[in-house]
């Protein structure tokens, strides 16, 4: 076994060539995931609200969007943006930006479903009571429904964040310098320790994801106490 290969490249796995060169490695992956989840939250909220609307011209486009994105592998979405951007914009996007947009688009469809489920899980009386006190539909959504629904959705968001963190490894394919790419670079350079290298980065991803998953489980238990229930 050649664990020294892993040990000598540990800083490259964690932050890339950062102080001297561009950020990379695990830090880049996490950064992409954070950017992705924030972007996807807003886009997903938008599509989720469209999806539960009773107006067909809002509902069906959202449904088509969600079904198409959820039926497509993430890899396909990444390729799409990578090859579509030059056609639409006339110039190439940086790989990281292109990957980030793909992550946002892909995750937003899943977030839209979470939002929809979260809102539908609230008892109907909440909306009726809010409308009854004189709020209009938008106000009732904004001040009564969403604050409760979003709080209940936090664990699902964390889970989505975990799977996005795992999915950032796919950015490797279009050449974003994150952990998986760092690992293949080191592997191609050294050639003697593939098992050690890939085991190490699997463990690195595992640590990040496992901490988040356990956090989300605890959160779920904690938040379950505050949920409004129907009778």
């Amino acid at each position, binding site marked *: 076994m050649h664990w020294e290969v892993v040990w000598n490249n540990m800083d490259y796995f964690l932050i890339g060539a950062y102080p001297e060169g561009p950020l990379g490695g695990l830090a880049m992956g996490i950064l992409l995931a954070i950017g992705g989840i924030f972007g996807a939250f807003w886009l997903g909220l938008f599509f989720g609200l469209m999806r539960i609307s009773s107006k067909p011209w809002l509902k069906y486009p959202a449904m088509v969007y969600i079904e198409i994105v959820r039926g497509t592998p993430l890899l396909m979405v990444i390729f799409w943006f990578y090859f579509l951007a030059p056609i639409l914009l006339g110039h190439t996007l940086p790989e990281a930006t292109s990957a980030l947009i793909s992550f946002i688009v892909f995750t937003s469809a899943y977030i839209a479903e979470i939002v929809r489920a979260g809102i539908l899980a609230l008892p109907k009386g909440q909306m009726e009571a809010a409308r009854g006190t004189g709020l209009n539909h938008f106000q009732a959504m904004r001040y009564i429904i969403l604050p409760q629904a979003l709080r209940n959705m936090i664990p699902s968001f964390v889970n989505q964040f975990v799977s996005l963190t795992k999915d950032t490894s796919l950015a490797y394919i279009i050449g974003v310098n994150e952990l998986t790419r760092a690992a293949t670079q080191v592997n191609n350079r050294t050639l003697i320790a593939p098992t050690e290298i890939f085991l190490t980065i699997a463990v690195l991803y595992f640590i990040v994801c*496992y901490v988040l998953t356990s956090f989300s489980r605890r959160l779920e238990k904690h938040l379950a106490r505050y949920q409004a229930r129907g009778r």
Partner: protein
Amino acid sequence: MNYQFDWKLVLTGEYGQWLIDGLIVTLKISAVSIFFSLIVGTIIAVFRLSKVKPLEWFSLAYTEFFRNTPLLVQIFFWYFGSDAVLPKAVNEWLYQQDFEFAAGVIALTVYTSAFIAEEIRSGINSIPKNQLEASRACGLSFIQAMSYVILPQAFRIIIPPLISQFLNLTKNSSLVMTIGVMELTYMARQIESYTFHGFEAFTAATVIYIAISLTISLLVNLYNKYFLRNLKY
């Protein structure tokens, strides 16, 4: 936007054939991986409920570890680093076969079986405990009680989530292009590099993927509607 769309080039002739070949490999690798992941997933789930501590811990570690690491890394691990983990004879044998395909199947199986194990476990847990107690009292062993009484009932409940795992597996199988398995995404990529008509090639591949997943979700919905409706315990 001065891009000339040329659907005919991509969808017919040699390149169209490539897409079909790719689709066949995608279906093949998915089917093989589904088969194995179902078996492995069931075993892992039964381990978890077996009340034998080492088996329980193994199952817990297995599900937690493989669910929390990216599939791509697992694919690379089995492709580049399987020497150190698999027995030498197995590796020799795999090298003689289609090794890319085998590594892809192993990675997809291991990854998906961890998810499937959790589904099956929750399915088994949803069967009332006295079913197991009653069958043990009838004189069945743990394995017999599981395979004749509990699992047949559990599987019926978890068919919808199980199928959505299979669907995920089919989508995830696009990742094995990175180690050179010539499946649908690989072929789309290939057409892109031969013709520079990436847009059409990826659209065609995407449509195929969506068609697969929509067909299967439709079947699941029908199943939910007609078979699961009357299920009560």
